[in-house]
């Protein structure tokens, strides 16, 4: 977001190279949408001059396989498309790409760094809330099923004596059909 003019001195083999004005930008991986930090990943430039950034070889290999990230379950593109992750939020406005470099101002830089932390926290809280709400209906369903299962299988949990004493905890009567042929087959096995 903020651009600093960085003087970087690199040693390449024997010669020393002075490189000025190399701005650092955090890119987004084209495939999985995670941030690509400097020193990581590969940039692929297609002949039509479109640049693809990849955070790691996993994403790069998937790209070479011509997979569509919108169909690959673990990518952000898929998650956003299928409503698994939060899509619309005001905190996303802060992350839009700006091509105009800002003049360095110490106060501005300090405030921005503080703001980045705060916005990050707010965004992640909202995102986790989104997921929690999404999973709420499933949780209720699972609890209902668990309750039913407990009722049916209470004999696995409580001792038979307790069952006999307390008539409310009785087994529901289930009819099981046993064929004659089955019982005859079982006997040789038991011996």
């Amino acid at each position, binding site marked *: 977001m903020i651009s600093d003019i960085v003087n970087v001195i690199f040693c390449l083999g024997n010669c020393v190279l002075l490189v000025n004005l190399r701005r650092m930008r955090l890119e987004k991986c084209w495939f999985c949408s995670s941030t690509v930090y400097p020193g990581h990943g590969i940039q692929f430039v297609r*002949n039509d001059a479109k640049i693809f950034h990849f955070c790691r070889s996993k994403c790069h290999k998937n790209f070479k396989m011509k997979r569509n990230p919108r169909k690959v379950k673990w990518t952000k593109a898929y998650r956003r498309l299928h409503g698994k992750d939060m899509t619309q939020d005001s905190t996303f406005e802060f992350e839009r790409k700006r091509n105009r470099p800002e003049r360095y101002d110490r106060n501005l830089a300090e405030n921005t760094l503080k703001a980045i932390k705060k916005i990050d926290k707010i965004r992640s809280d909202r995102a986790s809330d989104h997921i929690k709400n999404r999973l709420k209906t499933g949780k209720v369903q699972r609890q209902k099923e668990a309750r039913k299962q407990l009722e049916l299988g209470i004999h696995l949990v409580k001792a038979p004596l307790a069952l006999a004493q307390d008539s409310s905890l009785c087994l529901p009567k289930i009819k099981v059909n046993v064929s004659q042929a089955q019982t005859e087959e079982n006997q040789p096995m038991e011996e």
Partner: protein
Amino acid sequence: MRTVLKVVDNSGAKKVMCIQALKGKKGARLGDTIIASVKEAMPNGKVKKGKVVYGVVVLAAMQRGRCDGSEVKFDDNAVVLVDKQGQPIGTRVFGPVPHELRQKKHVKILTLAEHIA
């Protein structure tokens, strides 16, 4: 050696074959100059088939490390024909070029380029 490269300028040649890399023991990389022999050329071009020319590699499928630690790679191998002094023979350059050329002082190619990657 023997690598066939595409020519991305309008000098007349279409394909050249590398016969010598001018710098580097392991071969020329992105931004290096090579000596090449023209294998395929347009009928009315400045450069004819069989001519020995110099070229600057502007697209390389092999990744080249950048100063910030990232790596760039292009779709195929391509070259811009230059003369001995490093001035391009053609008047137009097609496709993207890397900004490694600025370091190698091929400023003319950069000015002619459509897109700098």
